């Protein structure tokens, strides 16, 4: 008797032509990025957003992030990414991550320099939850790592990673480099394995020549087709990619701006879908930018 079937746990297939269908078919990436803030306690030489201690914060409120996450799930997106700025400068971040992960799995990007005892205690809130903490570590040695990032960065990172792992937090390492010799990369991998992070949680990506990387003539040029179409929400609007809302000489780049409207999320999401559908086949790039 079909009338007796309990269908409450059967998810309806997304309607054809919708964002949800495009995500389900792999035409549109499933992750939505949120720029929680733009300020940072350090100022990396290749920072896309010229982040640093003195810049405007341009924060998304926790309530706005939760609402965006909820709408993302309803539209059919599958994952969230939280980036900045230094995300853990947002006072409520550990608890917010736990709340966000109840909506969709989360990866949060951090420089891992703020994990003192109190923050380590609070980050236990995400242990066992679908939250990955992605930490920047570019080189296996302090001097070349810190030259691109900040004095003392390496020491703080290699202290924070095992502390997080010990607390049951999933840690991912992101290495952002113009180039790296095989031997140096081998030593970096030995290092992260020793810190408790397996190879499967290590990503290597190129420096993209936007933001402060332009000032220092670093990285690869990346046009729209080179960048993954990952819907990115900021206090300034919605962008094509997390590499979109970059800042140069203190001015926000608008070349990858989708819409100023971010709520309802369907406005930028449908705009992105229409732009994706208008692209000719094979128009994406292989720069491995992620």
């Amino acid at each position, binding site marked *: 008797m079909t009338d007796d079937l309990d269908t409450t746990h059967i998810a309806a297939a997304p309607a054809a032509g919708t964002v949800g269908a495009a995500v389900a078919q792999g035409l549109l990436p499933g992750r939505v990025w949120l720029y929680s803030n733009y300020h940072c306690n350090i100022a990396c030489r290749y920072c896309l957003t010229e982040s640093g201690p003195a810049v405007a914060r341009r924060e998304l409120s926790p309530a706005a992030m939760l609402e965006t996450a909820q709408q993302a799930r309803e539209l059919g997106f599958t994952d969230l990414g939280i980036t900045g700025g230094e995300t853990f400068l947002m006072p409520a971040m550990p608890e917010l991550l736990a709340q966000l992960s109840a909506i969709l799995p989360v990866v949060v990007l951090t420089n891992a320099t703020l994990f003192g005892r109190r923050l380590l205690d609070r980050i236990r809130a995400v242990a066992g939850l679908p939250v990955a903490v992605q930490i920047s570590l570019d080189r296996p040695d302090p001097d070349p790592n810190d030259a691109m990032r900040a004095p003392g960065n390496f020491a703080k990172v290699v202290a924070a990673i095992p502390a997080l792992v010990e607390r049951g937090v999933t840690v991912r390492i992101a290495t952002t480099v113009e180039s790296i010799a095989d031997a140096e990369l081998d030593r970096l991998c030995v290092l992260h394995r020793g810190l408790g992070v397996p190879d499967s949680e290590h990503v290597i990506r190129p420096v993209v020549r936007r933001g402060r990387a332009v000032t220092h003539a670093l990285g690869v040029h990346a046009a*729209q087709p080179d960048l993954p179409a990952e819907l990115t929400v900021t206090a300034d609007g919605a962008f094509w990619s997390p590499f979109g809302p970059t800042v140069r000489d203190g001015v926000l780049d608008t*070349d*990858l*701006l989708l819409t*100023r409207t971010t709520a309802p999320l369907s406005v930028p999401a449908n705009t992105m879908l229409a732009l994706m559908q208008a692209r000719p086949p094979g128009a994406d790039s292989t720069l491995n930018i992620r």
Partner: protein
Amino acid sequence: MTTVRLIEADQAPLLARPYYAGGDPGPIVAALAQVPELLQVALPFIGMALGPSGIDWRTKEIVIVRTSALAGCRYCVQAHTVVALDAGLTHREVAALRGELPVSELFTAARELALLRWIEIVSEGSGPVDDDARRDVLAHWADHEVVELTAVIGATLLLNRFATALGLPTSADTLDRLAREGLR
């Protein structure tokens, strides 16, 4: 003059890029590009209202220049003085529309005089429009023409206030042409 950032081609948002394909799109597009989803719907409307349509070009430019002059929009008067000349209006007709000569001396056709009265009533008035005024314009223009001409006046007023409030700059090319025409 203080104004908003006018988006240049290398910073054109994705939805705005088609409007930059032919070169400098002008300050109205360059300002609206700050909000691409608004630009995307506004430009087709503005293009249809102010561009080629069932209303002839001369008449459209009479509406745009006169409305802009009555609204005191320096940017729109300068930009459309050039367009009106290209549309075949004489220097003296354009000068009259700009308020520099009496319009009744330059425009004598009953249809155009009715239109000029209608422009004044729509663009300068507030509150209800007198029934006699509607009867007057409808005596000389078909219903669909009055609908479109009224929409053109409204669209022009929108741009008048937009350009004036934001202090949009007149392009160097337009200023050069106006200087050559003696209509700056």
